[in-house]
């Protein structure tokens, strides 16, 4: 495929993977991973809490390490690959989070929001852009808005100075047809790069990433072994192999990725990668994959079926960051008579 710029892999293993281990990544793991992957050809390695800078919280999970401990460790072991971070405005702020990250030598920033709320990223994209660093806008839960609306939101981020727009299929509920339509529209109308971040709830992460690449996406944001929230992400080794087979030239070293995946990532993965019932239900309900931990905890606490919690959350159209809904929904499923029955029924009917 001569003439097409090579696909940039944004390696989110140490960011989205945090979700899969309840944000308990160790310094040793971050160090050994960064060291082993530094020359594997990744465009950037994103490090941190699953929900990004400033997100360590009771709402979405408390990190074992502080943001600065994670970044310092990664910084010491990355020489060739850009050190990247993710941040969602509303969780992190310029003073508490972006300034310290800049001081620690972070080179690439992804600023994310729910896909219909791009203007909350303005302050942060402009701030990073004026600091002279690479910054990308991220539209989360892109299955929850129309293609036209997503284009409008992406154009806002582009106007703030984002170097690229990454679409996150946070609940893994998109189909290749949806991805194709969305990515081709954005590629046609934006002058910045378009990226895609799939999840594997319905077993479509590699297929969706490939569909995105075919339509002109130049960034794929995924992880080694698919290590990530819920059912996991697009497994970059598998995607690389597919792209090579299809004639794409890659910067990434496939064997090196496979070896790191096997030797460093596999031992810390808590479970097999078969699609679990809650992951499938979360994809079906269209609920952000990272709710899994909170849903399982609340299901155990209130003795209710986690699948019912997911379905109810889907009905209520929750977005990322609304994990506090989990406790209330679980409590109401457990004690329907205790709930404010009238408003509850009204809400469920709408």
């Amino acid at each position, binding site marked *: 495929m001569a003439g097409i710029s090579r696909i940039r892999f944004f390696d989110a293993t140490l960011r989205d993977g945090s979700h899969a281990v309840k944000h308990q990544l160790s310094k040793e793991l971050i160090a050994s991973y960064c060291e082993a992957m530094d020359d594997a050809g990744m465009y950037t390695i994103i490090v941190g809490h699953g929900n990004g800078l400033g997100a360590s919280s009771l709402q979405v999970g408390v990190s074992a390490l502080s943001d600065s401990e994670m970044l310092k460790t990664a910084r010491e072991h990355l020489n060739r690959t850009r050190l990247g971070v993710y941040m969602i405005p509303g969780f992190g702020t*310029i003073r*508490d989070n972006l300034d310290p990250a800049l001081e620690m030598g972070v080179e690439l920033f992804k600023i994310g929001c729910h896909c219909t709320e791009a203007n909350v990223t303005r302050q942060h994209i402009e701030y990073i852009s004026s600091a002279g660093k690479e910054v990308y806008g991220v539209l989360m839960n892109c299955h929850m808005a129309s293609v036209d609306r997503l284009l409008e939101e992406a154009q806002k981020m582009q106007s703030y100075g984002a170097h690229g727009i990454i679409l996150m299929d946070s609940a893994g509920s998109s189909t290749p047809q949806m991805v194709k339509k969305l990515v081709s529209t954005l590629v046609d109308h934006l002058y910045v790069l378009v990226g895609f971040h799939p999840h594997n709830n319905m077993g479509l992460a590699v297929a969706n990433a490939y569909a995105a690449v075919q339509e002109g996406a130049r960034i794929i944001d995924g992880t080694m072994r698919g290590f990530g929230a819920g059912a996991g992400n697009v497994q970059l080794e598998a995607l690389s192999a597919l792209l090579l087979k299809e004639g794409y030239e890659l910067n990434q070293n496939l064997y090196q990725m496979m070896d790191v995946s096997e030797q460093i990532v596999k031992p810390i993965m808590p479970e097999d990668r078969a699609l679990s019932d809650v992951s499938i239900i979360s994809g079906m309900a269209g609920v952000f994959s990272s709710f899994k931990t909170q849903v399982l905890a*609340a299901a155990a606490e209130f003795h209710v079926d986690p699948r019912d919690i997911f379905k109810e959350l889907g009905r209520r159209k929750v*977005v990322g*960051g609304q994990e*506090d809904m989990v*406790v209330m929904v679980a*409590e109401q499923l457990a004690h329907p008579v205790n709930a404010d029955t009238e408003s509850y029924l009204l809400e469920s009917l709408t």
Partner: protein
Amino acid sequence: MKRRKIKVGIIGTGNIGSDLLAKVVRSDVLECGIFAGHNRASKGLLRAREMGVPTTYESIRYIEENPDCCEIVFDATSARVHQYNAPILKRLGKYTIDLTPAHVGGFCVPQVNLEEAMKWDNVNCITCGGQATIPIAKALNDTAMVKYLEIVATIASKSAGPGTRENIDEFTQTTKEALVEIGGIKNAKAIIVLNPAEPPITMRNTVYALIEKPDMDAIRAAVSMAANEIKKYVPGYRIILQPVYENGRVTTSVEVTGSGDFLPEYAGNLDIITCAALEIAESKARRWLA
């Protein structure tokens, strides 16, 4: 004879300014002396003119040139604009109630420190999330040893105007600082989420606290007392999840239904901050009138 009312100025004609105006018009101690924007074509200005309220598109300049138009000023612009307005209002000697997260003046939640705020010349109303959660945080902190406390405020996208969105950074930072400063929480965090669901969701706030061996009866009593006090000036405030101890944390959720003055009832985030600002202004006015 008609009872004298204290004249107020409202700067900012967006969601917050317009909602505030509807409440000022109903007040028995306040009247609107000027409703000031900077955009001649603003819908808010048009609406106010139709209500028969004096308006201007010259923003703060009008108040500078006509200082007798008001004694109290509500600033419902943006954090950046308030930084500019604050010294002017101070020079003019206006009692200023700031509804932006600029944090120029001291923080006030009426249920917590209304008396103190009467002595200041610039009072900051923090944020909607701060108004909704700081009383709960303080109630928890007064009842138990809180090691860490976190609030999550979720508001409907439709109720967050451009000012709120462009100030999301100050919003998050200011809410946290107020939890520390007047909530008394040493270790605090604030999270803000916008939800675009249709129909729009009602403003909802969750407070999580790490408390060792919590006395849940005492906690529930303190929280419900605080909620009843807030209800006196924010009618739509209610606890929807009584404090529960789950997964090692004390979790409480409150919902705020708006009175539907400007935006529909889901926009409780508007009401809670405009009701707080009104409470502060009316208390000040009553003192002057007494």
